[in-house]
């Protein structure tokens, strides 16, 4: 379970999170929607400790992420994250990208790591690209590789940070298909996205972010069809 309790965070003068609270249960898919700069991505970075927070706390399976004695490197093994810029390691092949953390972080042998990585890469439809370098792949393929790379660590949670925003429109579908597959397999996911149709289809709950606060959170049916807050209604009107 991921518990976010009254988290506040500023970058210099700019307060990007103004007291965010949210709970995500195991097996749940929660989409986070909202305008650019509303703090959605920052919240994801805080969950695995890539960003420090100023106030509040975040618990992942009861471990306080920002506590001084928390082993972040260990905690991060349980939390896969996929970014907007797909962030392939350009000097490594697709297979090496996927096995790096398996070998260096989990200490697996090359043989074991290869086996796990190949399974994950086949899962996302890249089984025939193992020896290729990322630069030879399309954006959608690189993003699917990034998903496989995160999944290979067998995380309990997957965080997606606008993973289709930097893709050409015709490549969005293949990445969403991969995420849909994961959701159907019961992965716990927090998906920051601008793909409303996708959010509506796969989410158990949808959270609406604005100005560093969650204004509304509820089932897709509630939030999309009968939003309680005028801010939510305005936002939906502008994007749908």
């Amino acid at each position, binding site marked *: 379970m991921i518990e976010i309790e009254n988290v506040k965070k500023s970058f210099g003068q700019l307060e990007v999170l103004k007291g965010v609270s949210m709970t995500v249960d195991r097996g749940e898919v929660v989409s986070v929607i909202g305008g650019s700069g509303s703090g959605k991505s920052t919240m994801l970075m805080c969950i*695995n400790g890539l960003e420090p927070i100023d106030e509040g706390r975040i618990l992942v399976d009861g471990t306080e992420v920002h506590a001084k004695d928390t082993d972040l490197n260990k905690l991060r093994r349980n939390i896969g994250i996929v970014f907007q810029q797909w962030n392939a390691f350009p000097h490594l092949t697709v297979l090496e990208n996927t096995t790096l953390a398996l070998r260096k972080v989990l200490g697996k042998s090359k043989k074991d790591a290869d086996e796990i990585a190949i399974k994950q890469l086949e899962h996302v439809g890249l089984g025939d690209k193992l020896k290729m370098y990322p630069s030879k792949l399309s954006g959608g393929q690189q993003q699917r590789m990034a998903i496989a790379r*995160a999944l290979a660590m067998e995380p309990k949670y997957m965080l997606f940070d606008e993973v289709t925003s930097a893709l050409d429109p015709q490549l969005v579908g293949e990445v969403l298909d991969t995420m849909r597959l994961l959701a159907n397999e019961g992965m716990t996911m927090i998906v920051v996205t601008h793909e409303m149709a996708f959010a509506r289809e796969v989410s158990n709950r949808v959270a609406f972010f604005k100005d560093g606060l969650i204004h509304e959170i509820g089932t897709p049916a509630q939030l999309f069809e009968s939003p309680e807050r005028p801010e939510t209604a305005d936002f939906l009107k502008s994007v749908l």
Partner: protein
Amino acid sequence: MFGTSITWGDISFMLSGAGLTLAITFWAMLGGTLAGLVFGVIRAQSPWYVNYPLGTVLDVLRSVPLLIQFILFNSFQSIIGLNMNPFVVGCAVLAAYTAAFCTEIVRGGILSVPTTTRRAARSLGLTYWQDLREIVLPLGTRVMLPSWIGLTLGVMKDTALVYAIGVIELLRSSQIIITRKPHEALVILAIAGLMYFIVSFPVSRLGAHLERKWREND
């Protein structure tokens, strides 16, 4: 030889000078690169109170003419009674000088790796050092290499200045022959130039080769 008064003895004298040039270059680059790596990593991530003093020291090393550094350091070490031999003094001064340049090359290389790539590595559970070793340095090396090759070639030519502290490297050995056979000056200098070239050329070819190889994957 070739109808000139230059003898095989002269050539072999120059070759032994060339050997010293190579040896000094090797030790200066080895020491300078290792120190540059360490200082570069420190420079790329340290707060101002570390960066400022370190940067100042490196700036001094980079700005004061090498000739002055050789003479000052050599005098200093003999005054305090270290009795280092000139070859060691030459290597040490040149290594410090190289380190000052190499630090900036390494710092630039590290900073060229996008933060987002490093975050992706850390998010997989890699430690700071694993990220540095597996991601940042290999990627940064592609940026650093051309400058590093340039530095190597520059340092090789800068070794000529160790004549000031009495080391007879390639250029000094050529000058010695010229003082004995002034009418052959041009030929001797041409031979010395050729020797520098023969040593430098493979280094720059190696650099070009690596750059090409890495670019294929980018």
